[in-house]
């Protein structure tokens, strides 16, 4: 193995793969077999974090950054004048194994530019996964990209070796896609996603009858959308997201704030800020849908099409629905506790347990870790101290913002910083 050559390729192909934000290595149930290498059955592990604060869990690379497509938002688009490189199948296998043995990574995340055609590319990706599983007895985590337009047979094979498959729909609306990636169409993304979804369902039901049925993509599917590249509002993004969760059983939808990489006039220009705060609010909404029992219509609807930037979406919902409050923490059910601003699911769980022993008061709640600066306006507990004033939503919001410091404060008050 020539280290210099590998090094050069790794630099190019890791750099090109970094805009894919998916990093999870959890959700699989693949255990170590026959004294092989690796075990993907436990929860995921972030082995390190880059200086931008994102977790590094998998060796995330492209097989090649040669690409026949010219999508405006993509750094490896055909018309972009950059260095190109391609790994050989064996090189990726060797890198993965050697990194894994040193406990650098949980496994491999392999994506690729599209060279020749979809099937030709998908075939190479599958070849890497197959070699790792069959020749190296590797039981670590493998995440493969489903190449849009790949044939059903290849997708079927891919799922037999990979833990997770993902296809990035990238642009939340079809109109945006037409504008920025005229060579692609939504149907090509949907095809492999649908195939994998159906295979997962089928393999699962077969497994119930025949125990020896092989695993098929045990960690499911995910996708990613770019935020802030094509002018969608938050409602369009989250409704698309909700649609994919519901109809394709996705495990995750990732939101990736657009990092400007070109001077294309259709896109935000180089130097404009990455919409990190907006990205954060979208993730919070995503969590509210998946873990807190909210319906998308409650958070985003025709009269409320964008998320507030200065407060989180749960607080925003609560302020619009003050008639649901105050909630008594000693008697409320789990569903309603989860809706109180300042209560996370951990606190909810602790409250449910602790209140079987004692009536909880403010001291207890504080010790448990409830964010009282927000929660105090929405709850009552075993104490005669509680918010008695009839406050308007604006007033509560003002009080909360006054008494808390957001790490995003600097982003919210751009104008003020002129004088600092």
């Amino acid at each position, binding site marked *: 193995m020539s*280290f210099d050559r590998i090094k050069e390729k790794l630099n190019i192909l890791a750099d090109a793969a970094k805009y894919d934000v998916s990093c999870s290595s959890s959700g699989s149930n693949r255990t170590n077999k026959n004294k092989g290498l690796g075990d993907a059955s436990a929860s995921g592990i972030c082995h*390190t*974090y*880059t*200086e931008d604060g994102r977790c590094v869990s998998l060796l995330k690379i492209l097989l090649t950054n040669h690409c026949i497509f010219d999508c405006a938002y993509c750094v490896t688009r055909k018309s972009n004048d950059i260095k190109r490189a391609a790994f050989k199948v064996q090189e990726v296998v060797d890198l993965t194994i050697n990194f894994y043995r*040193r406990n650098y990574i949980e496994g491999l995340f392999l994506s690729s530019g599209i060279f020749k055609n979809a099937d030709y590319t998908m075939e190479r990706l599958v070849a890497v996964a197959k070699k790792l599983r069959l020749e190296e007895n590797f039981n670590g985590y493998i995440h493969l990209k489903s190449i849009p337009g790949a044939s059903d047979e290849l997708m079927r094979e891919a799922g037999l070796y990979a833990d997770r498959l993902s296809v990035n729909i990238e642009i939340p609306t079809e109109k945006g896609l037409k504008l920025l990636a005229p060579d692609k169409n939504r149907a090509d993304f949907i095809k492999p996603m649908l195939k994998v979804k159906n295979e997962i369902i089928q393999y699962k039901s077969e497994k119930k009858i025949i125990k020896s049925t092989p695993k098929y993509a045990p960690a499911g599917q995910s996708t990613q959308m770019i935020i802030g590249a094509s002018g969608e509002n938050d409602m369009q993004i989250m409704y698309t997201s909700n649609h994919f969760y519901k109809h394709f059983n996705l495990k995750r939808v990732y939101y990736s704030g657009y990092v400007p990489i070109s001077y294309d006039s259709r896109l935000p220009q180089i130097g404009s800020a990455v919409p990190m705060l907006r990205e954060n609010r979208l993730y919070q909404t995503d969590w509210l849908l998946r873990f807190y029992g909210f319906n998308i219509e409650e958070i985003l609807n025709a009269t409320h099409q964008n998320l507030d930037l200065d407060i989180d979406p749960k607080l925003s919902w609560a302020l619009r629905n003050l008639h649901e409050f105050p909630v008594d923490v000693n008697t409320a059910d789990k569903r309603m506790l989860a809706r109180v601003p300042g209560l996370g699911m951990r606190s909810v769980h602790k409250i449910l347990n602790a209140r079987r022993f004692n009536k909880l008061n403010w001291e207890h709640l504080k010790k448990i870790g409830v964010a009282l600066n927000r929660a105090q306006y929405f709850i009552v507990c075993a104490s005669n101290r509680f918010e008695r004033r009839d406050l308007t939503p604006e007033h509560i919001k003002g009080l909360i913002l006054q008494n808390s410091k957001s790490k995003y404060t600097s982003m919210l008050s751009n104008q003020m910083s002129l004088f600092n």
Partner: protein
Amino acid sequence: MQNTLLVYDGSFDGFLCAIFYVYEYKIVAPKIIKISRHQEQLFSKTVTIVTEKQKADRVWKSVQTKCGNRGASQLYYAFLSEIESIEDTILEVVKYAFKSAKPVLQDFANTYVLEVSKTAKKVSREKHRMEAFVRFRLTKDQVYFANIEPDFNVLPLIEKHFRKRYADQQWIIYDLKRNYGLFYNLNTVEIIVLELSKDVTTNTTSEFFTDTELEFQQLWKDYFKSTNIKSRKNLKLHNQHVPKRYWKYLSEKQPY
């Protein structure tokens, strides 16, 4: 009131025997302390606890029935924190559990329970970090070697994870702070004590490690750099996830 100091050998079994002693002799104001922390005190009675596996097992069994497996393991995690006087906090929880009919480890309004729960959480976080931050280096003897200096004594907790994961390679994880390590010999995991040179963390010479070892470390460092997005730089978040005290054994953070 006069304290009774119960001095045990530092092992978990020893600690359980101290609890046994408290119940056997109905000690009113016990203070359980490991021998390495013990200093003669003027106004208290001192008892040296003898570790007996049988007694320890008896205590552990009833703790498990009273607290449940999850609860019991929380107590064990808290014990491994080695925080000063955590023994007394655990004893309080055990007493509470033996008195009560409810699963007391869920009573988060109780000071001792909350303390144990928080400490166990800290230890479990450290365990998870060690599973993430261990960096093996391949030695000339074909053993993957890693050294760590965890805040808490987490080696007993991470053994299973590494045994399951690296079943086909020999490895050593060595705790420099507590001066013992785990060695997996392809069949079982042994506890070992080694004489290590002081520069073991920084030593990169080919005297110990294979010729390609440094090359792979270099590749990993390069990868770490290329996968970073500069326009999203957020060092505060970075340091929060990878606290500086761990940097010394992370290959990607080495200056060479």
